[in-house]
């Protein structure tokens, strides 16, 4: 079995090396100081790589990862949030919020009717709160160009 700390440590080392490599590419300008713009990032990258190495050689307790089913519902939640981020502007606040909140609620507690009610309730409730109590400029529905 692969130990999560070891895997993570390796990933950290790779990312840290990439970070240092990318730091070396930083353009310098004529205005410069003794330290310059590369040194500090490279120091940080080096320390991070050492930490990664420590984790590879002296891992802590292994993490408990969720079962595949739960993992899938986590991935789904992330996708839903990303879609929500993109739909907030073109589709207005109410509909995307109701759908997203309902899906998230269903992921936490799988009761369909409850989830739908939560979605609608949160969407309307938060809209009223944001719009009228806090005076934020939210658009409730998509702006129709026709009809």
């Amino acid at each position, binding site marked *: 079995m692969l130990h*999560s*700390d070891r895997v993570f440590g390796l990933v950290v080392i790779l990312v840290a090396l990439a*970070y240092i490599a*990318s*730091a070396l590419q*930083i*353009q*310098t*300008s004529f*205005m*410069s*100081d*003794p*330290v310059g*713009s590369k040194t*500090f*990032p490279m120091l*940080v*990258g080096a*320390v*991070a790589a050492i*930490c*990664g190495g*420590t*984790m590879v050689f*002296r891992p*802590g307790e292994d*993490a408990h990862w*969720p079962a595949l089913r*739960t993992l899938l519902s*986590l991935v789904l*939640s*992330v996708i839903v*949030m*990303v879609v*929500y*981020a*993109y739909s*907030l*502007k073109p589709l207005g*606040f109410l509909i995307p919020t109701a759908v*997203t*909140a*309902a899906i*998230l*609620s*269903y*992921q*936490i*507690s*799988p*009761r369909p009717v*409850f*989830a739908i009610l*939560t979605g609608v309730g*949160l969407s309307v409730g*938060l809209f009223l709160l*944001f719009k009228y109590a*806090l005076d*934020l400029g939210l658009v409730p529905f998509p702006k129709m160009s026709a009809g």
Partner: protein
Amino acid sequence: MELLSNLALGFSIALSPTTLFLAVIGCFLGTIIGSLPGLGPSNGVAILIPLTFSLGFDATAALVLMTSVYYGAMYGGRISSILLNIPGDEPALMTTLDGYPMAKQGRAGDALVLSGVASFVGAFLATIGLMLLAPVLAQVAYLFGPAEYFALYLLAFSTLGGIASNNQAKAALASCIGLAIAMIGLDNNTGMPRFTFGNLHLMDGVDFLVAIVGLFAVAEVFIFIESHGKGSSIGVKLEKVRIPFRDIKNSFWTMIRASGVGFVAGVLPGAGASLGSFLAYMSEKSLAGPKGGFGTGVPRGVAAPEAGNNAAAGGALVPMLTLGVPGSGTTAVLLALLMTLNITPGPTLFTDRPDVVWGLIASLLIANFVLLAMNVPMVKVFVRVLSVPPAILLPGVTMISFVGIYSLTGSYFDLLLMVGFGVIGYVFRKLDVPTVPIILGILLGKHMEDALRRAMVLSDGDASYLFSSGIAITLWIAAVLGFFAPIFVRRYLRKPAAVSD
């Protein structure tokens, strides 16, 4: 006498009807936020910052509101610890040790009132301590040059990874990740982009609010999805609430001592409230000895960590205001608030903006009394809040986070970044990598690099300048000790695990 005139200035600001109103609202919201399992002070303050900012409050008003939320959340954290055995946040863990057993004995009401009083004593004494110590430390802070600041930042990072975490490498790594993220954007000195990979959105750097809300609030949603919101129904019944005068009298000295311990722990940069409640509990436990019955539900075991926790919360404001180095996760979030409001904490804050500092301190005092008045008679109201099912609460948190960030920056990119930070926060929580150092790194990274670069300009590139003053050397030694000592101490001072049913 200067202190009194300063206080008078503070109260003249804090006692205005608007500010007073904000303080009451903040205390109420804060207590609710702190008591909801899965929210906690850092989360709560984090998701409220973007909203506060888009409401367009002035600096004093925003600060009063958010610090009342902060103090309120510290009070509220104890409610879920005692009733549900779920600490609302890390420092509240110690309160579960005696609070939950006491609640199971049918003394939930007593435990809640006692812990409310203990919170008041701790927070009140700490605010007094803050008033006395902060101006003195501000004077000392004038002696700090870039070399000293660099060492101080290092100290903050190394102690933050200290006792609070279980693995030094992981804590240090988290700090590095934060610092690395802080480097993204335009270089202050040369004006050249760094690590932007040609992406225009990254030119301004990563907004720390996006990172905070992602790492704290969104990650929490994922945690709840994984656990399906298990273990959040109320297990103990709350009977009629009376004021347990005898317990309060008996644990009076415990509260005083715990406040002292907590305050000192809070003042240490980076150590914070977790260490405060931990040390307060452990010292009272060893004072009481095996006959004290700590861990079985004794009133003193409830009073000690709560007084310590709240005193540390006040103490943590000292380094935050005078040096710009936060002492805990939540103060890191408050520092983010100050930076958003364009207030630079540091010694000059005390001379340039006395209205902000003393208005803040006065409002803390007021908030404290409001909280005591709110928490003892109204404890039943807050208990009712606990029965909000997570399947409503967490989607709500998500939506508020999205709207907050969106109204602040108005960009999709920041929303995606926030979700990304949420995923990172979840994975790191699983891997036991602390996320608070990441926040601190993002907040302080540019300052730390600046300090290093200015020090090197002053010394013309001579690295020994970093160790050229007594203060700097002391800070370096403290940083090294603070980082490595917990490895050895941990063997003797084991953190008590949460009580299981």
